[in-house]
């Protein structure tokens, strides 16, 4: 039993028949072929699968693809434009905001949400905002620095 959905992902419209039980993360990775959003914990805790759904950061392992019919989705693949990294990606690069890089796509998508809502967050607000994203390398200090650097670039 499948149902048809139409979604806009990173500016491109896709239509697919999906089983209701298909999770958004599996839809993105296996059906659409976007493997930037990662599957870390599969228990909705680690945030590596974070994508933007209608302008809001969500854990795509805790949403069914069918719930997204008609939605606009942004994944890490949609952040860079015209061959140029997004300012948040630049900041993570410059500040060494990643070690193994596995959590990075989720960290960047959540950072976008933090800065969209609060262009000048304090350290505490950044840490509160990143509570849903785990870095198993425990490189949090550099990640917080990267978020601050991205905020600074945006404000300049």
């Amino acid at each position, binding site marked *: *039993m499948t*149902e048809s959905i139409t979604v806009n992902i990173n500016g491109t419209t896709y239509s697919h028949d999906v*089983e*209701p*039980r298909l*999770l958004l993360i*599996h839809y993105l990775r296996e059906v659409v072929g976007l493997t930037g959003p990662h599957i870390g914990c*599969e*228990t*909705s*805790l680690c*945030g590596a699968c*974070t994508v933007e*759904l209608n302008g*809001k*950061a*969500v*854990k795509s*392992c*805790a*949403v*069914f693809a*069918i*719930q997204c*019919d008609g939605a606009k989705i942004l994944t890490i693949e949609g952040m860079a434009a015209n061959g140029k990294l997004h300012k948040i990606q630049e900041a993570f690069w410059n500040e060494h905001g990643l070690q193994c890089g596995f959590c990075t796509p989720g960290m960047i998508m*959540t950072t976008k*949400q*933090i800065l969209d809502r609060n262009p000048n967050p304090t350290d505490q607000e950044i840490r509160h*905002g990143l*509570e*849903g*994203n*785990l870095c198993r390398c425990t490189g949090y200090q550099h990640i917080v620095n990267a978020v601050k650097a991205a905020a600074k670039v945006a404000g300049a």
Partner: protein
Amino acid sequence: MIPQQFEYSAPKTLDEALGLLAEGARPLAGGMSLIPMMKLRLANPEHLVDLGRIKDLSYIREQGTVIHVGATTTHHDVESSPLLRGKCPLLAETASYIGDVQVRNMGTIGGSVAHADPSADYPAALQALEAKIILRGAKSERTVTAEDFFVDTFTTALEPGEIVREVIVPVDGDGTGTSYQKVLQPASGFAIVGVAVRLRKSGDKISMARIGVTGLSNRAFRAKEAEKALEGRTGTPAEIQAVAALVAKGVDANSDLHASADYRLHLATVYAARALAAALGRIA
């Protein structure tokens, strides 16, 4: 982790949804509790009714001395609502501590309340606010108090086929101060213990005290003995310590790998004292 197969409906109207629920389908709101449970196959609904497409279920509206919050209003909408932040800050503050940004973007007040996790944050605030919860079935609607709604662990006053349609909280009166303080389980963000306090002062005396506690036992509850002990007092540090100790008195506390029963009882005392002091400090 792939859930069991199920049928999916996304009706546009509440009546349509209630009709399907009356036939045995189960409601899906934000899915932040249900979908992880389905992935673990702890929940295996055969038919899910997505409430997310019903437009008139998500709202925050003031009417007289109360504020109506629609069932599918997200935690983010609650935490960022200027109306709630100004007139019922306890609910907004509590919402800001739920899970994480991503969970607050999807999770809903109706879903959280109906799920009745004994470690959820909202139930403490709803107890302290003496909130009313409107339950709607295919044929009728009824109103229950938060106190009557939370029956036991994952068990509420909801009957089969009913959903939480709305939560009603009071507008803070003059001289009111509130606070929610929690110890969180670092991975999930759930409350190991959470204490919500609502105090009102007349002159220098506390005329009303309401204390809601979550995470400590099988359900969120009001610490009535402690409330009574505080009313009529001024709220000196010694009084707060004595009252905080009453919050944990006689409670059959939960015990798990995150916190033993004794530790939880201790935390309840400490966090009750902090919430009481913070609430008192916020009285204008």
